[in-house]
């Protein structure tokens, strides 16, 4: 038995210049907010952007962006990701009607392959992928199917994060993946991740100060950009845009 969808994945992303999976070892470090805000800022900088939410069990990009998910994405020789806030957006929630979707490993992998095989991103400068936490199915599938991904690792200064981030970085380095760098989110006073970045010889993309007001902007994309969180992410987005070799 041969799965014809795998070839289709290559085809669907061939006109995407840069693919940036946003990953973390631990959950709750702000990956979704970082991914959505990066997408908003890169779009404002004039780039063509796509955002793919692959966190099937914890999909939240549509909440952050207040995306209308009531209609199925348009079909045309595949599926055209709808425009949300000026960029293309795809998530399993369009198909799960935003209900609980209990999936095991093989089913997660199948759903991921299906989504990637049917979504026509066309020409993009950046495809940002909001990944689930950890080193499970989605990460392994991205390592398998999107070898040119440039990983952004999100971490917090918490001692609970450090050990897991070290493991994640070791895995990505061992697998010879390109790592754009680490974002240290929710920094209150002292950074702990700078040291880890230096030890692993990975770029420290910047720190994002803990912003107690950020939750009030969830669902209002424009407001996110005016928060301290948004301003810190903007500096990082500028760094990422300059890091491309085109």
């Amino acid at each position, binding site marked *: *038995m041969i799965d*014809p969808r*795998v*070839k289709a994945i290559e085809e669907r992303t061939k006109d995407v210049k840069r693919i940036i999976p946003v990953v973390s070892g631990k959950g709750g470090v702000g990956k979704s907010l970082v991914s959505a805000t990066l997408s908003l800022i890169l779009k404002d900088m004039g780039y063509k952007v796509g955002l793919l939410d692959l966190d099937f069990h914890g999909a939240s990009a549509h909440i952050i962006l207040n995306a209308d998910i009531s209609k*199925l994405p348009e079909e045309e020789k595949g599926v055209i990701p709808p425009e949300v806030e000026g960029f293309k957006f795809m998530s399993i929630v369009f198909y799960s009607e935003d209900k*609980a979707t209990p999936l095991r490993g093989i*089913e997660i992998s199948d*759903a991921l392959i299906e989504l990637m095989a049917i979504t*026509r991103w066309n020409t993009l400068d950046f495809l940002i992928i909001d990944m689930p936490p950890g080193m499970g199915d989605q990460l392994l599938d991205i390592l398998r199917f999107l070898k040119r991904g440039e990983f952004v690792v999100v971490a917090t200064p918490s001692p609970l994060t450090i050990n897991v981030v070290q493991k994640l970085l070791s895995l990505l380095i061992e697998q010879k993946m390109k790592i754009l760098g680490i974002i240290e989110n929710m920094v209150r006073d002292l950074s702990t991740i700078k040291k880890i970045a230096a030890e692993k010889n990975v770029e420290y993309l910047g720190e994002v100060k803990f912003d107690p007001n950020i939750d009030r902007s969830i669902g209002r994309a424009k407001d996110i950009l005016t928060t301290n969180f948004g301003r810190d992410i903007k500096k990082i987005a500028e760094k990422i845009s300059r890091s491309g070799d085109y």
Partner: protein
Amino acid sequence: MHEWALADGILKTVLEFAEKHNAKSVKKVTIVLGELQDVELEIVEFALNEMKKGTIAQNAEFSFKEEEAIFKCRNCGYTWKLKDVENKLNGEMREDIHFVPDVVHTFISCPKCGSRDFEVVKGRGVYISEIVVED
């Protein structure tokens, strides 16, 4: 229709297989269509016949087999068919499943014990079961 995207994947996979085996041409391809995904055979067939022109598969015969969808509960072991639970699925749900068959776990549960932890044993989606090439 997203059948075109599936057909595109099928043809590219077949051509890659033929190239790897240094084949002169592709004679026959058998494609299995799972009942759960409910793809329109006519569209896949039409798309393949359009896209194969000018490739080494241009004279290939594409044949299709439909596979019944069968589920097995991981919790209680009960086995059932799609037609046993079809009344639980409305048109919108069928369309959602058509695009991403795995969301079936959102919409149905084991008819016996109610668990959503079940396996799609057969008939999930589209795959290639046979490629015959000429050396």
